[in-house]
C-alpha cells in the first residue's frame, strides 16, 4: 500500500514539475516577445477551449450524457462577468477574479435550473432539450436590455497590454490546470466512480443504491460552473461579446473537441482542444479551405476511429517514463548476459 501511495506521489510530482516548466517557459517566451501578441492570444484561446472541453467531457464522457447546449452556459458566464467588471468601480485586477467566480456561480444556477427538468430525459432527448435551452438563452439575451441586445457588451478591458502581455494567458492557463486536476481527482474519487457507474448502466447504478438524480445534477452543475468561468475569461480576452458568438455551432465545436479526443479521456480533450483551436488560426492563409478540411478530417476520424483518437485512455508522462526505463533495463539485461 505504501509503495502504491509512493508511486502515486512521485507521479503527481513529475506531472507538477512538467506543468510548472511548461508554464514558466511559455510565460518567459511571451514576456520576452518570442511569442507574438497574436500567438499569445491564440494560446489563451487554447486554454479557454481546453477548460470548456474538459468541463463538457465531465458530462459527455464521464457521465455519458449528450449535451448540445454548452455554449449557453458559456454565454451566461461571459455576460455575468462582463456586467460585473463593467459596473463595479473596482480596478480590473481585483474585479476580474471576483467576476470569474461570479460567472461560475450564475452559470451553475442556470445549470441547476435547467438540469432539474432536463436530466429526467436520456440520450437523444437530453441532447435535444439542452439544445433547446441553449437556443432560448441565446435568443433571450438578444432581447434583454441588460445584455444590450444584438450589440452585445464591449469595453470590459483586459489585464494584458503591450508592456505586460501575459496576465490573461496566466489566468487562463492556471485555471485550465486547476480544472484538469479537479477532473482527474474527481474521476478517481468515490463520487467520480458513482458518476461513471451511471454512464455504464444507469438502472444498475440506481439499484446499487446510487442516487442517480443527485450525481447527474452534480456533474451537470459542476460542468456549467466551469463553462461559466471559461465564458468569463473569454469575454475579457476578446473584450467584445454578443449572443451570436455563443450559438449552436459553438456548442457543437466544443462537443467535437470532446468526441475527437476521446470521450472520457481528459488528456484527449486537452490535446484535441489545443489542436482544433490552434490549427484553424494558423491555417488562416488557407482560410477558404480550412473549414472544408476541418470537417473532412472530422468525418474521416469518426469513420475510422469512432471512439475518438484516445478512446478512454489517458496519456501519462510517468507511464511513458516507466516504459522507457523498462526498455532500457530490458536492453541492458541481454548485453549483460553476453558479457558473462
Amino acid at each position, binding site marked *: 500500500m505504501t509503495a502504491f501511495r509512493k508511486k502515486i506521489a512521485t507521479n503527481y510530482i513529475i506531472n507538477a514539475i512538467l506543468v510548472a516548466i511548461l508554464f514558466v517557459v511559455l510565460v518567459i517566451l511571451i514576456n520576452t516577445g518570442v511569442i507574438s501578441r497574436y500567438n499569445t492570444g491564440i494560446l489563451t484561446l487554447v486554454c479557454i477551449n481546453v477548460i470548456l472541453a474538459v468541463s463538457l467531457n465531465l458530462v459527455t464522457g464521464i457521465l455519458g450524457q449528450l449535451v448540445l447546449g454548452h455554449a449557453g452556459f458559456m454565454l451566461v458566464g461571459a455576460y455575468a462577468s462582463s456586467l460585473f467588471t463593467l459596473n463595479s468601480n473596482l480596478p480590473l485586477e481585483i474585479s476580474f477574479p471576483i467576476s470569474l467566480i461570479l460567472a461560475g456561480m450564475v452559470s451553475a444556477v442556470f445549470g441547476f435550473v435547467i438540469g432539474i427538468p432536463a436530466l429526467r430525459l436520456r440520450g437523444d432527448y437530453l441532447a435535444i*432539450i439542452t439544445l433547446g435551452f441553449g*437556443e432560448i438563452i441565446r*435568443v433571450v439575451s438578444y432581447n434583454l436590455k441588460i445584455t444590450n441586445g444584438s450589440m452585445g457588451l464591449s469595453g470590459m478591458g483586459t489585464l494584458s497590454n503591450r508592456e505586460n502581455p501575459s496576465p490573461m494567458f496566466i489566468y487562463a492557463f492556471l485555471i485550465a490546470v486547476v480544472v484538469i486536476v479537479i477532473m482527474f481527482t474527481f474521476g478517481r474519487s468515490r463520487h467520480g466512480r458513482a458518476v461513471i457507474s451511471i454512464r455504464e448502466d444507469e438502472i444498475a447504478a440506481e439499484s446499487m443504491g446510487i442516487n442517480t438524480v443527485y450525481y447527474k445534477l452534480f456533474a451537470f452543475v459542476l460542468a456549467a460552473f466551469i463553462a461559466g468561468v471559461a465564458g468569463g475569461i473569454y469575454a475579457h480576452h476578446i473584450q467584445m461579446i454578443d449572443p451570436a458568438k455563443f450559438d449552436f455551432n459553438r456548442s457543437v465545436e466544443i462537443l467535437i473537441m470532446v468526441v475527437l479526443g476521446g470521450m472520457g479521456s481528459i488528456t484527449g480533450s486537452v490535446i484535441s482542444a489545443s489542436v482544433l483551436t490552434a490549427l484553424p488560426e494558423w491555417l488562416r492563409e488557407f482560410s477558404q479551405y480550412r*473549414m472544408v478540411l476541418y470537417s473532412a478530417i472530422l468525418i474521416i476520424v*469518426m469513420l475510422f476511429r*469512432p471512439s475518438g483518437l484516445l478512446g478512454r485512455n489517458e496519456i501519462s508522462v510517468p507511464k511513458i517514463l516507466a516504459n522507457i526505463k523498462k526498455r532500457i533495463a530490458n536492453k541492458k539485461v541481454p548485453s549483460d548476459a553476453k558479457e558473462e
Partner: protein
Amino acid sequence: MDFTTHVINGLGLGSIYALVALGYSMVYGIVQLINFSHGDIIMVGGYSVYLVMSILGLPVWIAAPVAIIVCTLTGVIIERVAYHRLLVHNAARISLLITAMGVSIFLQNVFMLFFGSDPKAMPPLFTSTILKIGSLELASSTILNIITSVIMMSGLQLLVNKTKIGKAMQAASEDTEAAKLMGINTNSVIAITFAVGSALAAVGALLYSNTYPQVRPDMGNLLGLKAFVAAVFGGIGSIPGAMLGGYALGVAESLTKAYISTKLTDAVVFGILIIMLLVKPSGLMGKNKKEKV
C-alpha cells in the same frame, strides 16, 4: 390581418417544416440518428434551383426535377460515404451524430467556397398573386405550400403502408435485427429512406425558395433545427406526427409573430419543444418505449 389569416399563413410556413421534418423522422425511426446534415440538403436543393433558373435560365419545370434528383443523390451519397461504415460496425450513436455534424459543416463550407457566403437572390418560381377568399387575403405561395405538403404526405403514407419497400421500412424501424432475419435487405432500406427523406427536403427547398426568394450557404441551419423540433414535437419516428408537428410549429411561429413579438419567435419555438419534452417526451403521436432492464 385577423386570426384566421395568421393561422393559414402559419400552416403555409409549417408545410415546409413538415416536409423537412419527415426526413428527420424517417431517418431517426430507422437508424436512431439525428441527421444534422438534413437541413443542409435544403440548401443543396436551393442552390440547384438557383443554378438551373438563374445561371442557366431554364424554367421551373426543369429546375424542380433537377433539384429533387440532386438532393436525392446527395442524401444517398452522404449515407453511403459518411454513415454506412459506422452503421455496419454498430458504432456508438454519438460518433454517428458527430459525423452528421461534420457532413453539415462540410456541405456548408463547400457551397461557401463555390458560391460565396453572401445570399443570392432567386427568381420567382411561380407567379405569386394575392388570393381573396371571402374576407381572407392569402398569398398564392401559402396555398401552394399547404396543397403540396398534403399531397406529399398522402403519397408518403401510401408508400409506407401499401408498398413492399414501405413495409420493409416499417419492419426495419421496428427492429432492424429481426428485419434482417426475415430476409429484408436493411442496407438498401436505409439508403432508400435517406433518398425519400432527401427528395422530400428538395420539395421543401422548392417551396422555401418560392416563399423566401434567396439562398445562402447557412440557410439550412435554423430551418433544419426548427424542422427537427417539429419532428420531435410530433413524435420522432412517426410520419403523421412529423406533419402535425410541422403545422403546429408553423402556426405557433406565425401567431407569436403576430401577437407577442417577432424577436422572440425562436425562443417560443424552443420553449414549446421543452414543454413537450417534459410533458410527453415521445411527442404528440410517438409511441412510448418501455425500458428493458
